[in-house]
């Protein structure tokens, strides 16, 4: 026997929840080890200790071990490292000294939230189940939606010390083999000391310097199932209520869970609205600054006179005024994120007052700037996945416009498009199918137009991979 009870005891001694129990049977000693906080003590008593104690002849051979304990899942442990791995994962270990034999069995009891309503991607008419922090729960939510024999779930332990369990999901034959191989290789190559969430994996899969998410994430199992069927891969990390998907394309940011549960024509209209809102939130502030500071001859006269009058008395240049209002808004948004929900509502009222009436009254901003900031705020809320990228690029656009007028505005926009065009998600072009395909049909008619679900639900071929 290579697993010594004394060795395990010396390594784990000092942990208050480490339990060692000796069971004496006909002069033979069986030692039971488990971590109390992640194991089910009642289960161990009823299905392991009790049957062992009542075994009349004792356990005299390795074959009898299986008959003596009532565990559904158990297996042999060959060395101390393996025993420790099982113990720390929540599996109790039994050492039969006489037989020089050690086994682990499944008696895990991990605390987790129940399956709750999705907060981040709430759906009005579709499924609202969302992942929680327990990996097995998350996988079960996926499993119950797809009785597919080709679904593969590969387990990986990430983090040299944390040994966090993660799974790579894909449908064999549907997901491109080179994509699966690439992701698998990147997961195996991760050399983090610890992995606490999905973002660790996302950064390993897509280390690009960009504000746009080139790895998708969702907390809805139905969304993951759809993406798996489309031929993508997914990675779920234990302890994170989000699943990663790859490849992830820009136009996915404009899609919402309800898109597949409501009228497709209306969904198409909504997607156009979302796309319009991205453009407005990205470009409107810069366009406003460019027009009002360099090219006011392009503004209709009646409006330009009103703008001039509303700005009179504001002590700052227009660009400072706009950036200041942006700062107020971002402060308000960040505070709203950090505060509990109940206080957050009060904060939003205060924020609205400051951003709206008080800033104008105090002479810090003109009414037109408040309107522009307000429109920016509303449109940036429409696409929450793009919020961080939009807020930074909008400020960039403002600065370019203030420095160079409309020339700078256009240049800023061209740089943004060039940046988006250069991005890749697991080596696939981020703007797919734009620039890589002649028609949106290549993406199952599911880009701006939401096609019939009979077409959307078919796997499609990703092209343009490096």
């Amino acid at each position: 026997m290579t697993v010594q009870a004394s060795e395990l005891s010396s390594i784990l001694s000092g942990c208050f929840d480490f339990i060692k129990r000796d069971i004496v049977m006909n002069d033979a000693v069986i030692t039971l080890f488990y971590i109390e906080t992640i194991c089910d003590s009642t289960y161990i008593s009823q299905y392991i200790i009790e049957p062992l104690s009542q075994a009349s002849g004792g356990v005299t051979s390795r074959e009898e071990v299986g008959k003596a304990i009532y565990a559904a899942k158990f297996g042999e442990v060959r060395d101390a490292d393996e025993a420790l791995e099982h113990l720390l994962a929540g599996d109790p270990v039994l050492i039969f000294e006489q037989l020089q034999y050690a086994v682990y069995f499944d008696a895990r009891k991990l605390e987790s939230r129940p399956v709750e309503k999705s907060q981040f991607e709430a759906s009005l008419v579709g499924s609202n189940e969302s992942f929680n922090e327990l990996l097995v729960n998350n996988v079960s939510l996926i499993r119950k939606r797809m009785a597919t024999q080709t679904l593969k779930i590969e387990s990986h332990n990430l983090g040299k010390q944390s040994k966090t369990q993660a799974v790579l999901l894909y449908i064999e034959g549907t997901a491109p083999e080179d994509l699966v191989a690439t992701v698998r290789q990147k997961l195996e190559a991760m050399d983090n000391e610890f992995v606490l969430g999905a973002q660790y994996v996302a950064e390993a899969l897509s280390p690009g310097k960009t504000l746009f998410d080139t790895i998708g994430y969702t907390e809805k199992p139905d969304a993951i199932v759809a993406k798996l069927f489309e031929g993508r891969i997914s990675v779920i990390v234990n302890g994170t209520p989000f699943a990663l998907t790859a490849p992830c394309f820009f136009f996915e940011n404009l899609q919402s869970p309800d898109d597949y549960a409501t009228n497709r024509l209306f969904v198409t209209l909504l997607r156009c609205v979302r796309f319009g809102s991205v453009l407005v939130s990205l470009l409107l502030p810069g366009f406003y600054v460019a027009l009002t500071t360099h090219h006011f001859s392009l503004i209709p006269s009646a409006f330009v006179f009103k703008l001039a009058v509303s700005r009179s008395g504001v002590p700052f240049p227009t660009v400072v005024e706009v950036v200041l209002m942006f700062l107020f808004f971002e402060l308000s948004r960040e505070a709203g994120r950090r505060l509990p929900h109940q206080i957050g509502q009060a904060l939003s009222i205060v924020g609205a007052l400051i951003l709206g009436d008080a800033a104008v009254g105090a002479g810090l901003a003109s009414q037109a700037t408040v309107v522009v900031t307000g429109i920016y705020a509303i449109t940036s809320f429409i696409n929450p996945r793009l919020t961080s990228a939009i807020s930074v690029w909008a400020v960039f656009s403002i600065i370019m416009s203030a420095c160079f007028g409309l020339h700078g505005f256009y240049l800023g926009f061209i740089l943004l498009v060039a940046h988006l065009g250069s991005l890749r998600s697991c080596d696939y072009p981020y703007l797919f199918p734009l620039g890589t395909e002649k028609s949106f049909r290549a993406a199952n008619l599911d880009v701006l137009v939401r096609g019939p679900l009979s077409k959307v639900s078919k796997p499609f071929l990703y092209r343009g991979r490096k």
Partner: protein
Amino acid sequence: MIKALRRIVLVTLMLAVLPVLLASCLGYRDLDHIAFVTSILIDQDEEENLVFYFETLNSIRNSSKEANQEERIVYKIATQNPGDAINRLETHTSAPVTLAHNKVILFTERFAAGGLDQAFDIFDRWQESSTRTLLGVYVGETEDFIKPNHEEEVMTGLYLYDMLGNKASVTSYGVKLNIKEFMNQKIIGDHVNSMSIMNVSKDKDTKGQYFLDGLALIKEYRMVGRLSSEKSIYFNFLLDNEVSGNINTQNPEDRTKTVSLLLQNNRYKSRLDYKDGILKMEIILKLNTDVSLIQGKLKLNEENIAKLEASMAAKIRADCLALFQRWKDKGTDIFDIQEKFDRKYPKPAGRNIIGSTELDLKVTVDINGTTTLRDVE
């Protein structure tokens, strides 16, 4: 490392090109630090000085937000050299001046008779000047331009722009003419432009109110004549300008009263035929009208309607022919005949074709309906 350095240098160069090449002519300016010129009146004094009246909008700073408002200031600059006018204007204002939102340029009759070219080039060539600026001739007192009787409308420039631009299409008493169209027409065909005349009421009760008062005819840069409001409508008929509004004729049942017909849509066809040195110009005018007002009593039966149509057609035809003959006799082509002739017959292009033009005008009036019938039992 070298790749990153190259990228940084490229981006820096790209950004540096912009201010040097593109943005140098239009720098950063905040709207509240600009004096907007909204209208300009150009006059000529007895010493042959050009007198510019610049109406400007300035935004006023105030400590309370409700008090933010615009202020209208009219600056008067008299100069021999029009190029100095805008330079000198900037010495009077608290902020840099822009002509980008100048809506209207008016010329006094005296200045227009002397020739618009005395000052027109600064609007034609000035970098910030807009070609959409409307032109007109002003026959009122200059004091009324400085202090107009329009309390509700603070900016005279915007008010005049609407009068010259929008109202011209519904009253038939004016034409819309901007700098671009003026410059084009000045070198095409007859070289004659028609420009609305803006007058100011001298009536005790309505003193200072603007009104359209016919058309000024400008040949190249010089004002050569004037058409009254009544004649303007016939002029517009002959030129196929948009004509609408009411036109009056005799009441068939009462010769002392009138009937007004509202013009709805007009069809205009013209044909030129040049033979043996004579240009025959055929114009077919079909007017669709509604009865809009009957003075006195009139039974709207078929017979009376036919009479109305006939009398209206005869009246329009007679007045149009009289107007044509008058300017033909003067030898001045105000009807764009030369332009049409040059387009159709580019080879035998001859000057002053109006002298050998015969007008064949056919007018048909259709009364389609009447707004008064709605209330008839």
